[in-house]
């Protein structure tokens, strides 16, 4: 991106600013915030800085705004839309102020006075008419005044003639009011009705949009769609679990208006793995936002690979001050377990903008893993000082209490976070962890389950589910969840170890060995393949295989009665004491792990095995080593005694 010039920057800035206004016109606050942050993070090129204010003015002048438009208004380029917008301006302003006051129903009623049908959304695709729909089943009859129950008829547009902006605002506020009601009906976190409530406005919105889109298509106007309604339709479809359609509509939306970050977010949430991401990439528009999206989605899918970092570098050139991008980088480091690096980035971010609470929960996770209690307390202090009723803040505080092993308090704060935002993923997962600590497995399972429901990509929740079921001794269940976790984090040895041990428990040693071998490979992958400085797992010296895994593999072979293989793995376990051979010349680095319980166990096993094989000398040697190391001395001595006796008795008859 060396060709990124001042003119480009100016143009981009203008576009972004326009996007901010458009988002906030539609009350998409978070998207507006995101775009605004992005636009500010563009570098201030010398000549641009002086004329920054003038720029916006000139922009407004050339587009010839309608006389009554307020300062933030960018006129629509579509004359028909512009005419409609001008007509309904006062109503629009009324509706927007209602929305700002969170009076969603009232806001919707400004443009769509009649009620839309309500009820839970059925998981059918509304615009694939070939499928027979079963909508009638659960619909609440008295509300369906607008659309009568016609099964086979193509949906008709019952909406009044409105500009797309007004229509979006009206339907969006309906959606919001449904969400609000849904939250209210959910009552207590993990209460009896929590999680089983639905947004009852979805049906009405779906129908209306469906009708509107077919109508537009029929009139050949679909070319002048602005993308916002598509975005809303995508959300609604995603809620109705028709994900493929949702993806399609969201992609359509980002084609029409790429600067709506909300649409990208929804899209990335629909992607469950890297393959799906690869699949949709060609369908995406070729622009800056797609780059950012790709980066974000990859991060969400834990792809902390070199190409992704390169992508990030490129974007960083364009937006040198973007906190969003910095956060992404920190998260990438976090996924690759490079906590120090991630911590440094987050710390810098915090210093630059102390009032920023976004994604501080990740920061607190990092500090948690690093056991940096003072720092975590300080972070909690800062977050609390800014806003103590943000889910992120509650998570930070909860993490702090968790680190102090005050699990009840931690749960209290996680619950608070969830009361503030039921879709707050990390709180669900973390609460699950706390419940595990408190030995409340049922609550833990439910929490994890909710986390997974919110976001299927959260490997920690999967892993947690597996652990909980392991505690309950339901290994087949646990195996399933561990596999999910492992598929999300194929290069995390911990996942594979868990899978391996589960296979062992359900008596499938062959698979277990495979899983353990994967774990070994994954372990070495991070050690050698990781290109980011000193990123090593769990502080082990580089080039060492995990002796525990080796030992387990050996035990599995023993189970399979392949004693030779078992013995060779045992030898490998022992070898880890000294470290890899190539490090012999370099003493300072790559020393072995020394004598541990695991290696001692392996040694014991080997001693017995050798003893059984009759290789008494070797067995004696090993047993003596054991006595020297001071581990399992008694057993070793017993073995030695036994051996002596045998050797004596073996010698005397000979």
């Amino acid at each position: 991106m060396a060709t990124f010039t001042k003119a480009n920057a100016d143009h981009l800035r203008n576009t972004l600013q326009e996007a901010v206004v458009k988002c906030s016109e539609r009350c998409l606050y978070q998207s507006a915030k995101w775009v605004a942050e992005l636009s500010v993070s563009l570098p201030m090129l010398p000549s641009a800085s002086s004329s920054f204010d003038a720029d916006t003015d000139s922009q407004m002048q050339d587009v010839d705004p309608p006389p009554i438009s307020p300062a933030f208004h960018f006129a629509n380029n579509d004359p028909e839309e512009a005419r409609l917008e001008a007509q309904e301006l006062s109503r629009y302003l009324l509706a927007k102020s209602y929305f700002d006051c969170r009076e969603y129903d009232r806001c919707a009623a400004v443009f769509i006075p009649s009620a839309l049908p309500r009820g839970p959304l059925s998981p059918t695709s509304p615009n694939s008419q070939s499928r027979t729909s079963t909508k009638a089943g659960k619909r609440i009859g008295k509300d369906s005044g607008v659309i009568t129950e016609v099964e086979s008829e193509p949906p008709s547009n019952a909406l009044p003639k409105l500009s797309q902006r007004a229509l979006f605002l009206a339907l969006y506020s309906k959606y919001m009011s449904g969400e609000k009601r849904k939250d209210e009906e959910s009552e207590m976190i993990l209460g009896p009705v929590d999680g089983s409530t639905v947004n009852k406005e979805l049906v009405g919105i779906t129908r209306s949009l469906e009708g509107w889109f077919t109508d537009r298509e029929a009139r050949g106007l679909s070319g002048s769609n602005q993308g916002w309604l598509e975005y809303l339709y995508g959300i609604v479809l995603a809620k109705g679990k028709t994900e493929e359609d949702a993806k399609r509509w969201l992609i359509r939306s980002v084609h029409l208006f790429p600067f709506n970050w909300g649409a990208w977010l929804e899209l990335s949430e629909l992607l469950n793995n890297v393959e799906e991401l690869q699949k949709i990439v060609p369908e995406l528009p070729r622009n800056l936002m797609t780059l950012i999206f790709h980066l974000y989605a990859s991060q969400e899918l834990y792809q902390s690979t070199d190409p992704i970092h390169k992508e990030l570098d490129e974007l960083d050139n364009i937006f040198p001050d973007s906190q969003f991008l910095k956060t992404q980088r920190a998260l990438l480091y976090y996924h690759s377990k490079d906590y120090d690096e991630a911590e440094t980035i987050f710390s810098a971010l915090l210093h630059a903008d102390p009032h920023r609470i976004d994604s501080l929960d990740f920061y607190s996770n990092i500090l948690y893993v690093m056991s940096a209690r003072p720092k975590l307390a300080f972070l909690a202090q800062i977050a609390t000082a800014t806003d103590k009723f943000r889910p992120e803040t509650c998570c930070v505080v909860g993490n702090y209490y968790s680190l102090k092993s005050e699990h009840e308090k931690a749960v209290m704060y996680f619950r608070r976070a969830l009361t503030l935002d039921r879709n707050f993923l990390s709180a669900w997962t973390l609460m699950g962890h706390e419940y595990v600590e408190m030995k409340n497995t049922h609550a833990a399972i439910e929490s994890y389950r909710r986390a997974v429901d919110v976001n299927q990509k959260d490997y920690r929740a999967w892993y947690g589910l597996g652990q909980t079921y392991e505690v309950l001794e339901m290994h087949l269940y646990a195996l399933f969840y561990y596999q999910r976790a492992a598929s999300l984090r194929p290069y995390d040895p911990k996942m594979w170890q868990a899978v391996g041990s589960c296979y062992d428990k359900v008596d499938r040693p062959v698979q277990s060995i495979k899983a353990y071998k994967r774990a070994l490979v994954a372990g070495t992958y991070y050690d050698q393949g990781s290109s980011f400085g000193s990123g090593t797992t769990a502080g082990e010296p580089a080039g060492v295989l995990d002796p525990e895994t080796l030992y387990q593999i050996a035990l599995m072979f023993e189970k399979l009665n392949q004693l030779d293989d078992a013995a060779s793995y045992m030898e490998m376990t022992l070898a880890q004491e000294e470290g890899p051979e190539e490090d012999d010349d370099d003493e300072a680095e790559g020393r072995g792990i020394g004598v541990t319980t695991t290696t001692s166990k392996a040694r014991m096993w080997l001693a017995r095995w050798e003893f059984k094989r009759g290789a008494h000398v070797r067995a004696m040697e090993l047993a003596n080593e054991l006595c020297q190391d001071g581990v399992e001395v008694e057993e070793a001595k017993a073995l030695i005694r036994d051996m002596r006796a045998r050797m004596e008795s073996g010698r005397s008859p000979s």
Partner: protein
Amino acid sequence: MSRYLTPTKIGLLALISLYTESVVPSAATIPVLSFLISQVLPVNSVTSRNDDLLRSRDIALTLDDFQKATINHISGIPGRTVWDLLLNKLWKINSFDALHVFFDTLSLLLQKTPEQLQNEAEGGADTDSNPNRMLLSRTSPLGAFVRRARLEFTRLQFHYGLTLGKSFVPYRAPSLPQWKKRNQTAGNTSFDVNLQQDHLDLGDRLTEVAYGELETGALQVAGVSTEDVKKLLEYQVDQMQRMGSRLPQAMKMKLRDMIESGVTIPSLSHYVSFLDSWKAGDYPSSFDNLHRYFDYTMHNRDRTFYQYALLNLAILHQDFGCYSEAVVAIQETISTARENNDMVCLNYSLSWLYHFGKAHPEEIHEVRKKGVLGTDREALAFLKAKAKETSMWTLLSTSLLSEAKLSLSHGDGVAQAFESILKASHLNVTKNVVNAIGSQMSMQSSVFGRLGVNCQAWVYGELFLQCYASSSPVEDVVHCIGKSAFLLSQKGRYEDALARMEEIEEETLQILRYSQYWTSSLGLLKFQRHLHRDNLTAAEHVLSQLRAPLNPSQDLQFNVSMLEMDLLIRRGDYSKAMEMLEELATKFNEEEADTYQRVKLMTLKAQIYEKSGLPQKGFSVALRAASLAHRARLLPALWEAVGRVSAVLISLKEFSAAVKLLESIMPQVLECEDCNLSAQTFALLADAHVGMAGQAKAETLQRKEQLTKALERIERSFDEFSRIEDVRGQCEMMAKKATIMHLNGDPVLANDCAAKYLDIKRAAKDQL
């Protein structure tokens, strides 16, 4: 603001943990411990009743106080004082997490509970790193304090804990220079290790977000917790209720500051303002505050508190003169207290009702009829029994005193009264009922006054003022001062009396009732003085002022009437005086008046008859008065009545009988130290002697002797009159002297006396 924990408490905890680490050498143990204990003990425990302790106990200690308490003690570590170690401990709390750690480690200071010990035995491990540490018993004052602090900290929500941490930072900040001396690395930001690590300075934005209020000093007041404020308010209420005083102005300001600083206001503060406005005589706002207090208190103590509200209401009504409402309220109180089985409240309200009935007999008729209390004696017996049952010693003591008073006013034996008083006194001493001692001593003093042993009465008054004034209700003090001023004025020491009146503290006079009492007493003194100086116009002015207050006490009212009659007599308006007297007498006959007052009235009646030249008419009255006074052992009144009887005798020319009578009472009269009484008795004696001289033959030795005796008595009487500055009496005596001189045929001396008479008259006029 936190509920309990404050920076001060953190400091105390640090010092406690220092103490347990055995680094405080034995020489310093006692000072350090007593410093800690003075802060840690609850206010209302017995030992902290000690005044010195209370005074030294600040609600919020500053770091300076800690420094003063610890800097002089060398610690167990060479070269360091205890203060240095304390500083080290305090500055180690260099982040919010460190604060948590600090509180977590507090548990190590305590002895383990059996369960913990068991757990440890099972789980092994968790041994203390410091073998020198002494463990605090869980129930010791320090242990309880540590436990409470830990509990409160655990209960704190995160951001409240944060507020505590933040308020601790400016609290500790003044000691930074000293800390720097010991620790070179300390800097401006060493209050938080995170800031120090990241090399941030005070002006940094992050610092501002984290410790935003540091610069502005808005956190200064956060040094007190709700608990502290509550304690403070409890102390105020206690003081106000025990002493009956008002909130000092300075304290009021302080309280307002504290409450404005965003405390969760304990509802007690409404009670304090109720008491304050009540004492200030602000009827509507005291009502308002009382109701507010009970509205806020209802929800956590529910209806059991209702009777106290009613009791307060009754007292309030009575104070503002709404007697019928007061009766209704107290009756309701009694029935609610009975319902709820609240013996304390029931006894208290019964006793209150009894006293109320004594003060306002006319209001209580209805209640009497219903037989809530029965007769006075029964009521007292009941109260005594109840008080003993529930061991309410104050009530028992006051009931005993009331019994003494009752028996005195009924004219029963003095011995009985003394018995009751002694019982009360014994009770006060053995049960340490400090605030009842005042009423007991004043009772004793008034009994002695009745017996005519005024010096004893005076001594008791002085004793009380010297020893118990500070720990007794202000009301008792005010009354005692009034009484002793009256005694002084009787001896003619007007200036001393006025000075005594001025001794009352200004704070006391902020309370309406006391200031009314005070002004009336002062007015009485002045009234009397003006009368004696024959300054009748001035006296009349004072009188009109004395009549102004709406509801003076009965005693005062009586005294005013007596003096008013005296004024009328001095004016020579005997018929009007008589009229007034009759009016009073009929009123007294209707109610049960005090014997003392009735005797006084009767004597005065005899005196009026005497003055109007009909002494024989007063004979029966005077005799009745004398016998009544004799029965009730009202000795000064008895002597006065006897004087009146002898005046009748003189008028009947029974001089020798009069002399005999008068001479027999003379010693006791002198004992009374009442100048007016002795002057009049001397004058009567002189008259009798002159009469006897008249009966003797002229030029006989007998006549001479009688005349000399008469002159002597006149001289004495003159002295007494001049002591109380009674111009008329002085003149009368001078005139009599001149006459006798003239009779003796000594015109020069007679002339001298006449001249002196004129001088006195002139001097009195000049003084006007």
